[in-house]
């Protein structure tokens, strides 16, 4: 049997999957060798998130043994200079026990190289091709190439075009995959244009549209909660659920991202991707398997059932806001229009809320409230499922309010699940009070969730697209928000700023839904 396996592997020459010693070894180790190319490697995302994620994978053994990293960006470095830059960033952004040092760092460093590049010059992509071939020879990366686009989005089409021109869209020896950072387009048309540019070069099964929210453990746990338990699914429908509130709130302002944010706004920055992805996970039907396409089929199906509001409905189905000066954590903070790189008369929303309905058998008539904003009282991302009130009241003191049950999936911070239910207060009277049953990942499993980027980069190397968004879902998400975008863009809100930093958001959102969960 073993000999047959060896003979087969030899004939196929395909390595890892036919290696009989691989069978049964822990699946969290990535065996597929590769070179990962980071476009925009001198930028903020690379140094804060991507590089630490990759190095952490090296430390915990999940990175392939045969691996190389190529930085590709405009800032001028030679290989050694970029290695020094990477070490400096890792010293800054890795925890103390994981700082780069010793033989492991030396080995990692020699696998790092850099190309100072103009994204519009094919010659630099030919240099990249040569470098990848060199990596194949020096580090056994086997013609497997992961291209990670972490540049500003306007550059994506240029990079893709030149990858094709340089003959890098596929390698006869191995696989090629492209990771595309969000935002995927700035509206429906630009997303379609970007998609056309990508699909002209790469097939869908090689495109990994990243939304790092999907790599967060509690987001993945939504699937476990719904489909690894029997108690929730029977009541997960219009018969028992009153409404669903999906919130992604931040107490931070735009920080150093004013230039980007003033052209984006809350709807593009959060609702179109993170929040709608959460909506899909919480509302989709049970997939027939855990296969990436089975899950993504269900996500698309439920999004395609979301009713797109008409332009006329936008004002009754949504609310927008922009923060003015206020107080957060006892500290005075300036208003949005006073932030760096923000126009003093900006019409950009820093708060967006929408009510949507899913027109299918399961969810007909159940409102889904989507909310995201900056400079709200605290950072919180959660999905709150409010169940219908009891049908008939016969118990409890008449002065007691009987609250509906609420199941809250807490994504950050305090990742976990909370259930509100009613209980009798001990004593001779029939008083009712709400109590909470809490599960916290921190205390429940005593571990911190692994960083999302590690999970997602690992999945991309392994070819697992489950946690990446397929084009049909991206396009549908743009379709859902397009009427809001168009109406908001074309209508200046003279009431801006209309909520104080640190408040619960604009009054208009309260009118949209009087029972918003308090932040």
């Amino acid at each position, binding site marked *: 049997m073993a*000999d047959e396996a060896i003979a087969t592997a030899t004939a196929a020459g395909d390595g890892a999957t036919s*290696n009989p010693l691989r069978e049964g070894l822990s699946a969290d180790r990535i065996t597929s060798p590769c070179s990962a190319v980071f476009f925009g490697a001198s930028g903020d995302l690379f140094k804060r998130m991507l590089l630490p994620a990759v190095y952490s994978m090296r430390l915990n053994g999940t990175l392939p043994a045969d691996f190389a990293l190529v930085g590709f960006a405009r800032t001028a470095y030679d290989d050694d200079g970029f290695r020094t830059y990477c070490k400096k960033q890792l010293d800054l952004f890795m925890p103390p026990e994981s700082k780069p040092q010793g033989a*492991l760092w030396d080995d990692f460093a020699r696998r790092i190289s850099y190309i100072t590049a103009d994204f519009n010059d094919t010659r630099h992509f030919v240099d990249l091709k040569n470098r990848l071939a060199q990596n194949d020879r020096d580090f056994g990366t086997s013609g497997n190439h992961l291209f990670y686009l972490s540049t500003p989005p306007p550059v994506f089409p240029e990079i893709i075009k030149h990858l094709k021109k340089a003959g890098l869209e596929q390698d006869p020896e191995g696989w090629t995959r492209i990771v595309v950072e969000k935002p995927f387009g700035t509206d429906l048309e630009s997303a379609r244009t970007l998609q056309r540019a990508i699909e002209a070069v790469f097939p869908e099964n090689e495109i990994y549209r990243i939304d790092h929210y999907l790599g967060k453990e509690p987001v993945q746990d939504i699937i476990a909660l719904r489909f690894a338990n029997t108690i929730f699914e029977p009541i997960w429908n219009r018969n028992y659920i009153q409404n669903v509130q999906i919130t992604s709130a931040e107490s931070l302002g735009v920080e150093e991202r004013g230039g980007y944010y003033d052209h984006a706004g809350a709807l593009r920055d959060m609702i179109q991707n993170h929040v709608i992805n959460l909506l899909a996970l919480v509302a989709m039907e049970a997939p027939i398997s855990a296969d990436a396409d089975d899950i993504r089929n269900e996500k698309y199906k439920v999004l395609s059932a979301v009713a797109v509001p008409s332009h006329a409905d936008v004002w009754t189905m949504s609310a927008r806001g922009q923060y003015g000066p206020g107080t957060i954590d006892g500290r005075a903070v300036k208003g949005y229009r006073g932030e760096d790189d923000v126009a003093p008369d900006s019409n950009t929303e820093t708060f967006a809320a929408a009510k949507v309905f899913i027109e299918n058998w399961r969810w007909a008539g159940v409102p889904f409230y989507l909310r995201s904003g900056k400079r709200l009282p605290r950072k919180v991302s959660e999905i709150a499922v409010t169940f219908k009130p009891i049908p008939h009241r016969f118990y409890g003191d008449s002065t007691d309010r009987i609250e509906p049950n609420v199941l809250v999936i807490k994504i950050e911070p305090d990742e976990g699940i909370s259930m509100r239910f009613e209980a009798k207060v001990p004593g001779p009277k029939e008083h009712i009070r709400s109590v909470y049953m809490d599960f916290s990942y921190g205390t429940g499993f005593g*571990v911190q969730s692994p960083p999302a980027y590690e999970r997602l980069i690992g999945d991309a190397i392994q070819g697992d697209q489950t946690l990446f968004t397929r084009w049909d879902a991206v396009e549908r998400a743009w379709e859902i928000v397009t009427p809001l975008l168009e109406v908001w863009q074309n209508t200046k809100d003279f009431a801006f700023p209309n909520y104080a930093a640190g408040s619960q958001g604009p009054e208009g959102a309260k009118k949209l839904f009087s029972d918003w969960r308090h932040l």
Partner: protein
Amino acid sequence: MSLDIASVQDQLLASYRDRGCDANVSTMTIAVFFENPAIGELARDRIRMLASKHPSRVMVLDGSAPETVHRVDGCDWIELGVRESGPEMLRAAVASLRLADAPVVLLWAAPGLGNDPRFDSLAQDAQTIVYNSSLLDSGRDALRELVSYVGNHPQLPIADIAYLRLAPWQECVAIFFDGKAVAELRDLEHIEIACGSDPEALYMLGWLASRLAWTPSAADAFVNSTGKRVAFSIDRQGEPRRILRIALSSSQSTFVAEVDREQATIHLSVTGSSEHGARYRAIENPGIPALLERAILWGQDDRLFAAALEAAGKILNEGER
């Protein structure tokens, strides 16, 4: 002398009430048995770490302490002296004090398996049993006992920490044969393992033998499926339970994985026709809590382990001839 189980149950109730132990996540009941107090202290320490990640009811069955010792620490930590308790009494204690519905994990941290009726008794109600054949210096004997016991109880849901400890080294060896070098697997001629204790080396050999269809043919050799001899040697050096070096030689190449001088990384090198640039992997000497976790989550029905154990047993038998 009998155990006062009712008193422990009262203490548990009082503990929940007085300490305000909230409803919490509970994943299992862990029962640990030992006779050596020093091993007991180590076991307590490791289980505390494990239970902090997987909230559990813990029953410390202290074979060195008298039955007068019975107390509840915290909300779910039970200490029981069981020095004179017989097999049925131990089993009854676990049955009475375990969490209903949650699985029972038995950590057996004492010498002897088949010749100790207390193990037999406790094993009957355990969904997972964790053993450590290299816990004591008598590693070969402990492994032999395990082979024998599992031979008589093939369905036993048992995992051996000594085998689980091999995982990073299995990965290193597997890396050598990803790609075209896989062809050299059928041409291997010699295996050398430098290790601080025997069970890990025997498991590594057993794993290779079971994966590659080698049959033990002498105290220091296998024959492969084409009848060719594959010699092996075990060099005892370094700290117990730590592998220092594994070298595999074929007629064309030599594959070496070894710990570097600073004991911080494993250096992988290949010379000969499959020559490959140096590779390094972070040393993963997973602590006992991490190994216990693996044993509980994945260890109890591991057919690769079963095959490696069986092959290790045959290697031991050849050594006795």
